[in-house]
């Protein structure tokens, strides 16, 4: 009789324990709740066909703790903008010189013996040894200079703040300005949702990124649209997000190298807009969000300035 009582007691205890465990397992208390059913899954956009990756990374040039702000390549030299200074390094990574600047520049273009630096709302012209030649007139408080390119005795300046491209002579004399309207009846010209507005010159032709339209547009010197291609797509063949490609440069063989923000990826396109392949695939790294600035050398190798990791990455064709 006594043993029977103990047995019933043990069974009751075991049943109670099982009930508590089951209730706990099925409970909806915090820390035990399921995944958010509305979670946005974007992992698919980070997956690319490995056969499309036509470049390999062969070098990384570390730039220290100071955040880099801009990059250009010319004549076997890399020009890296830092806070109120310019570091010149060889493509192998040796530091050649460090030049103090009067202000913080955010973009640089090197042409022969001259450097053009974009100081937020004015251009500074320097000799490549660091001597200041001239600071050009300011473009007003609203201006945000994001890119500079040159062709012969003309210098083109992209102003993201005013959504316009300005054309100067090499002495800083303003020759013209255009806002990217495709024809007189257009309601808008360049669409610049954030301070990314790039341009480059290839084969004497001016190419301007219209990032809000995901387009690359070819203009005459006076600003008349000659042609364009645009590709809006989250998929690898297009440009995603609100303002891409954020950075662009054109290789000596005419290949367009584009760099995107958000879904950070660097790709190569033909001048017709057809995707050639991937230079650097997107990575699902939450710390990597800024579009690397891109520059190319004579052999078509791509330098990518990684703003998130303070380094220059060098890619060559496989």
């Amino acid at each position, binding site marked *: 009789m006594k043993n029977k009582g103990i047995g019933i007691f043990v069974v009751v205890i075991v049943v109670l324990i099982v009930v508590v465990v089951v209730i706990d397992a099925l409970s909806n208390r915090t820390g035990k709740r399921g995944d958010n059913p509305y*979670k*946005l899954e*974007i992992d698919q956009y980070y997956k690319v066909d490995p056969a499309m990756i036509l470049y390999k990374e062969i070098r990384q040039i570390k730039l220290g703790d100071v955040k880099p702000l801009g990059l250009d390549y010319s004549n076997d030299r890399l020009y890296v903008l830092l806070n109120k200074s310019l570091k010149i390094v060889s493509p192998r990574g040796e530091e050649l010189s460090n030049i103090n600047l009067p202000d913080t520049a955010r973009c640089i273009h090197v042409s022969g013996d001259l450097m053009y630096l974009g100081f*937020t709302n004015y251009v500074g012209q320097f000799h490549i040894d660091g001597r200041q030649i001239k600071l050009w007139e300011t473009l007003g408080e*609203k201006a945000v200079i994001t890119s500079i390119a040159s062709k012969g005795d003309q210098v083109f300046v992209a102003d993201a703040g005013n959504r316009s491209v300005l054309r100067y002579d090499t002495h800083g004399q303003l020759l013209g300005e255009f806002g990217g309207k495709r024809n007189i009846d257009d*309601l808008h010209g360049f*669409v610049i*949702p954030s301070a990314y507005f790039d341009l480059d010159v290839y084969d004497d032709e001016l190419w301007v990124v219209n990032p809000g339209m*995901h387009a690359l547009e070819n203009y005459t010197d006076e600003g008349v649209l000659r042609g364009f291609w645009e590709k809006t797509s989250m998929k690898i063949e297009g440009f995603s997000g609100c303002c891409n490609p954020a950075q662009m440069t054109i290789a000596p063989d005419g290949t367009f190298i584009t760099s995107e923000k*958000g879904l950070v990826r660097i790709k190569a396109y033909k001048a017709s807009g057809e995707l050639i392949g991937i230079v650097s695939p997107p990575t699902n790294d939450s710390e990597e969000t800024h579009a690397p600035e891109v520059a190319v050398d004579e052999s078509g190798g791509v330098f990518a300035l990684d703003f998130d990791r303070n380094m220059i990455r060098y890619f060559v064709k496989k």
Partner: protein
Amino acid sequence: MGKDGHSRRDFIQTSVRASLFIAIGGLGALGASRATASHTVWQIDPFKCTQCGRCATECVMAESAVKCIHAYDICGYCDLCGGYLKPDANDRATGGENQLCPTAAISRNFIEEPYFEYVIDEALCIGCAKCVKGCTAFGNGSFHLQIRHDRCLDCNECAIARVCPSEAISRISIKKPYLIKGKFEVIPSVEPPKSSSKK
């Protein structure tokens, strides 16, 4: 009366005064420490947030105290908005099939060609972070989550903070109870277009 001129009554009076002084001092110190503790509140650091979605499911409130906030000064006012439209949307339009938000808490208002303003209806927002992830991945990152202090119960141990994978939630000063993006933006943002009457 003792040999040194102090009576037992003096001793008791002094002891009582000392006890009262210590008690009042202790109460004051306790009150001060509680006051200091209540000078902080829970908040999300938008730069640490990885939009995992747990803010919507883990808050002790039936409808989370976390809501989406829009930093207009860094918004691109884009037609193709990664926070409003599904990544594979058929059209850049307001049709429900194109909208990313599961509760249609974001309205899209035309400003001028080709710019649109995106406004969050907080009463509908459930803090799921879907729009925040889309905006961060494809846009300027102007959508971000914040704990709304008019809803937050200020729990001793925040249920969301406990499970936050990026440790983005911590206690901050009540003097500055929100960590709004935009003020921290380093890259100069382009001014938004002016509103027109066509809205």
